[in-house]
């Protein structure tokens, strides 16, 4: 594609044996046409490697999942039309509802504390601090750790007989908790792993949002005698709303995809597919994996994938609707006060 630029360089020097006068217009006309073609076609050439790979390996599988969910499709076997059979089967399977329930509860107990802690941390990080980069990098280290590594370490920490956490709880008089096999305790343990990995990341996102809030607002608030807490609720929070909404949406989507933590926390084997000995932390992703790769029922797995997508959409729409509702309520104390301060 560098042809046109090399012709450009050659153009002022007519090739030997040819009269310069006749060569020039001919060449420049050709060059112009080439350059016009280049301007038109290049953008498509630039986006096409991305688009082709993205369509082939990203979008096509998503769409094909819908098609597959309408078939009885056994891995390495037959494919027969099922209509909505996979879905009716799904809605009658108690373990589907169990997985749906687990996904929702795990999502709530991992996302809510995570975002609240992140907000508090970001607020503290926003002060002038000594060794500020040390804290920021430390916050992000769990994010750099893989799900597998994190879960394997936490499985040790949460060990029933010799785990550090039970030992520490024992010091304050709490009896040994069976984190791996208990039902609520298993979910709590998994939520702690998720929280550990993502809190620092979200704190940094909030911090970035806070730093783009004008310092003038804080000064005005301080002049009006607002305490630090009032400044936080009346200046920081309203200014951070789009960021908060974004993190909520992304975290809930992430929560619907929870897989590695329950899979590895269960200790492997059949328990890994089941999401714990009594399915107590089997999430939708894990359930899909079990249908597809343990029972080889790919059609059913595809139906689970679509049910999950539906859940994602419901979550996102719900979040956006709540956000919009709050927008429409004009007399919320926080926003009203912030606007006052802003003025």
């Amino acid at each position, binding site marked *: 594609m560098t042809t046109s630029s090399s012709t450009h360089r050659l153009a002022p020097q007519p090739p030997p044996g040819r009269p310069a006068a006749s060569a020039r217009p001919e060449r420049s006309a050709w060059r112009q046409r080439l350059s016009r073609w280049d301007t038109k076609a290049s953008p498509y050439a630039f986006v096409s490697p991305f688009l082709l790979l993205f369509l082939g390996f990203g979008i096509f599988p998503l769409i094909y999942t819908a098609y597959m969910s309408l078939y009885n499709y056994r891995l390495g076997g037959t494919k027969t039309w099922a209509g909505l059979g996979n879905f009716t089967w799904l809605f009658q399977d108690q373990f589907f509802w169990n997985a749906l329930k687990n996904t929702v509860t795990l999502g709530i107990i991992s996302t809510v504390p995570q975002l609240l802690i992140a907000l508090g941390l970001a607020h503290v990080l926003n002060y002038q601090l000594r060794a500020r980069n040390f804290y920021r990098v430390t916050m992000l280290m769990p994010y750099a750790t*893989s799900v597998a590594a994190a879960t394997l370490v936490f499985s040790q920490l949460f060990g029933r007989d010799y785990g550090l956490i039970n030992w520490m709880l024992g010091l304050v008089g709490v009896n040994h908790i069976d984190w791996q096999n208990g039902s609520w305790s298993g979910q709590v343990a998994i939520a702690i792993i998720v929280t550990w990995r993502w809190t620092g990341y979200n704190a940094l996102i909030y911090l*970035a949002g806070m730093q783009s809030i004008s310092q003038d607002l804080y000064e005005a608030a301080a002049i009006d005698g607002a305490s630090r807490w009032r400044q936080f609720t009346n200046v920081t929070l309203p200014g951070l709303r789009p960021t908060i909404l974004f993190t909520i949406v992304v975290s809930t989507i992430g929560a619907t995809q929870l897989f590695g933590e329950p899979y590895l926390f269960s200790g492997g084997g059949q328990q890994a597919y089941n999401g714990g000995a009594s399915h107590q932390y089997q999430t939708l992703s894990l359930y899909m994996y079990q249908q597809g790769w343990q029972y080889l029922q790919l059609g059913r797995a595809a139906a689970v994938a679509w049910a999950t997508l539906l859940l994602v959409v419901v979550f996102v729409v719900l979040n956006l609707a709540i956000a919009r509702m709050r927008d429409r309520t004009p007399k919320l104390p926080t926003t009203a006060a912030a606007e006052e301060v802003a003025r």
Partner: protein
Amino acid sequence: MTMSPVRTGQGAQHATRDSRTPRKKSRAGRQMTARWPSYVVLIITAVAFIAPFYYTIVIASRSNAQMNQVPPPLIPGGELWNNFAAAWNTPQANIPKALVNSLMVSTTVTVGTVFFGTLAGFAFAKLRFTGRNALFGFTIGTMMIPPTLGVIPLYILMANLHWTDQLQSVILPTVVTAFGVFFMRQALVEALPDELVEAGRVDGASAFRIFWSIVLPIARPAMAVLAMLTFMTSWNDFFWPIIALTSNNPTVQVALNNLGGGYVPDHSIIMAGTLLCTLPLIVIFLFLGRQIVGGIMQGAVKG
């Protein structure tokens, strides 16, 4: 959680506030200083964030028998090298091969994502063509759909191509990302002046020449950030690799999955293997941590 590498925000729509940034910086001196409770909070959190890393080393450097004690040991012991050797030689995990494979996969994915992302990002940011807005809208519209939902057809596709258990099965689905394109477009919209592209065109440079000689040098800082994030995400990718690969030809996450999947009863060896597989990333992080932090925060505001 195979979400887009950084969950940056098109939701975080304060790009418009960028104009205020310089002013704010000059006032940084007036930012409130932290009092001691803030440091207490930060130090407690820092300890909570670091403790699991420390404890990995404790377990990895002790024998299994030493770990099965009450109270559990709190300081590292002397078995680290033995446990490393045992983990290294565990055939179900195949860690040596996993490290090489992960290096190859993550490098290829990073180069692809950054290069194709910059190329397409430049086109979306600065070139005019029919269907540009529609295509870009489509790209960011699909960014929020979790890619894990497409794994079933993807698996059939790879099985039909006889690519399962081969590295291309994990490279191809992630070698371009909508996030990469989005990230580079946002960076170039801001960093690359229209006049520069125009000047290149007046000088008769081809579009690719403009990309190569004008855009790439300007895009370099953003490309570096995207590269770090992509490498990290790719190294840590779990769900699809454990479906597509086996212990014959694993990436490190597949190796860890097999190590922790019940074949190996010895916790110390499992932790030693975890350490081996995590170490390369931790080393990168110790050197580039500040840049990665900067990149994530930048992405959050610019998005």
